[in-house]
């Protein structure tokens, strides 16, 4: 279960409760947006970066966040919404502290990926796109993660877990929950 990315620093887990993300942009967020705007040939070029930046601090992109971004950058709200809803990695609904991205690509499925995802679903009592009641996990399968020779794989906390099998799912989830701090599952 340990990945070859042991040297890779896991991202800090967001500790804010869901509803704490308000529409207003923090001075720090504004500063980062200014840097993006200054570097971009045209303002619309920052759309994805801006959304990712706000999502990093807020966990997801709520309506109020989108509106605040539109007002600050003077980009059309509809254009930002169009971009925000287009991408797999921009969340327009609240997500749990850890988002689980099992691969649902064909090479993983040839090696038992579907069974792995079924086990995850049953263990967490979720279907794709849902979040656990305790806000710990959200399940968002992604297409081929580019590690097909190590199938089946899953990304969580920006770490790639390779050659997974169904039996190790409970232990892996315990580990990921423990990394979040607080009590375990």
């Amino acid at each position, binding site marked *: 279960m340990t990945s070859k990315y042991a040297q890779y620093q896991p991202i800090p887990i967001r500790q804010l409760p869901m509803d704490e993300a308000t529409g207003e942009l923090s001075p720090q967020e504004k500063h980062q947006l200014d840097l993006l705007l200054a570097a971009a*040939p045209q*303002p619309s070029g920052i759309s*994805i970066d801006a959304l990712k930046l706000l999502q990093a601090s807020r966990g997801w992109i709520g309506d109020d966040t989108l509106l605040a971004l539109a007002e600050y950058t003077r980009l059309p709200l509809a254009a930002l919404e169009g971009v925000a809803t*287009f991408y797999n990695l921009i969340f327009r609904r609240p997500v749990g502290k850890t988002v689980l991205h099992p691969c649902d690509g064909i090479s993983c499925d*040839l090696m038992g990926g579907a069974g792995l*995802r079924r086990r*995850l679903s049953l263990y967490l009592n979720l279907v794709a796109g849902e979040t656990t009641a305790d806000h710990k996990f959200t399940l968002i399968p992604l297409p081929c993660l580019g590690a097909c*020779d190590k199938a089946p794989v899953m990304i969580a906390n920006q770490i790639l877990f390779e050659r997974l099998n169904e039996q190790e799912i409970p232990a892996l989830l315990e580990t990921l929950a423990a990394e979040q701090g607080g009590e375990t599952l």
Partner: protein
Amino acid sequence: MNDEPVSNEPVSDEPMNNAPVDTAPPTKPLTRFIRPGEACWTLAAYLAQGGYRGLEKALGQSQEQLLEQITASKLRGRGGAGFPTGLKWSFMPRGASAPSPKYLIVNADEMEPGAFKDRYLLEQTPHQIIEGLLIAAQTLDADTGYIFLRGDYYLAQQRLTTALAEWQAHCLENPALGPLNAKFKIHIHTSAGRYICGEETALINAMEGKRANPRAKPPFPQVAGLWGKPTIVNNVETYCNLPHIINFGVDWYLSLGLGQDSGTKIFGVSGRVKRPGLWELPMGTPIRELIEVHAGGMCDGYSLKGYLPGGGSTDFLTQAHLDTPMDYDAVGRQGSRLGTGTLIVLDDSYCPVAMVLNLIRFFAQESCGWCTPCRDGLPWAEVLLNKLESGLGEAKDLDQLEALCRFAAPGTTFCALAPGAVEPLQSALKYFRADFEAHITQGCCPYNHSAAGEQHYG
């Protein structure tokens, strides 16, 4: 990426054993910098093994000389379509009257099902990509480079960011690099995950902050691309070839290929083989050698039923085609495509209908929604395949699936997503017809494994 000895242990994440680097022309240029157990992605390691020598040579040559060499090398794009790189570059306006700025983009949005070669190059040899990009900039007199990176490639992002910073520092110490460094700026753009962003005009729209729908061509990006300016988009692996062509020469590069295509390629195999992985091999390496020697053959108890030679958007081939060389034209003559050169093996225990269903579901989900055969045709095909897999299929469903493949034929859609999507389906209907029919006559999946409804799980 060890080649020998064949073992049962998957070894592809072990760096390859290459001959110690000397100035002799290598047989595996793209992976010559990758060292077992060493931080081969750092500038120090790259320089120590002879990195940036291609750029050094390029800086002493004229733009015409450089373009001539790239054209003469017969390098073809490694992103899937195999378009000749020199020809593509020749369409970009040059000279004093050319519009500016001119943009170069590294397409690192790898998301083709079964493709995992670009991630390997990005993580292991970020400097090789930067060197290739700089040579392209020198050749085309470009102003800005963007590395358009898949959002999920976190380690690659980290290594590229570090590599760029190392490169900047290196330039400050080397006055000879000053002019190029002053003119050409490189940025990393991380995407947020949509397959269509890999299509070059959709990628340009994505970079402009628009929804990533492909653009109508002409105008081609080489003339009017990013922000309306001349733009070249090439694949990660394509850029990786450039330093070596300039460093070791065109004749050497032409001699690497076994058949009519020049150079080497990172080939990959995934599925139930003994040693899934990646290998750098000459263009034209036979498919049989790839599967049986490098990938170690099928796992015990499994046999080879078919394979997609170039990733998830290429037509199935079978046992009968094993002696085909992995060459653009040779694979094309067998009715499939070399694509990304990453082969997906279907074994006899896995239902071909389920495999095609998985792929069609992916393409249906990733369709940008611009054209009808794709937006409506692919979900319809998914419904029909789900129906078959659930044992509810009827004979007329197969006719409908064939009709849907025809609707999405090349030329009927804005981009190549839909034509690529139906390639595995149309070829499965040809080669695995009996399996499709068995689902209908038996009223269930004969592989006793129903993939129907799997999309509901995580």
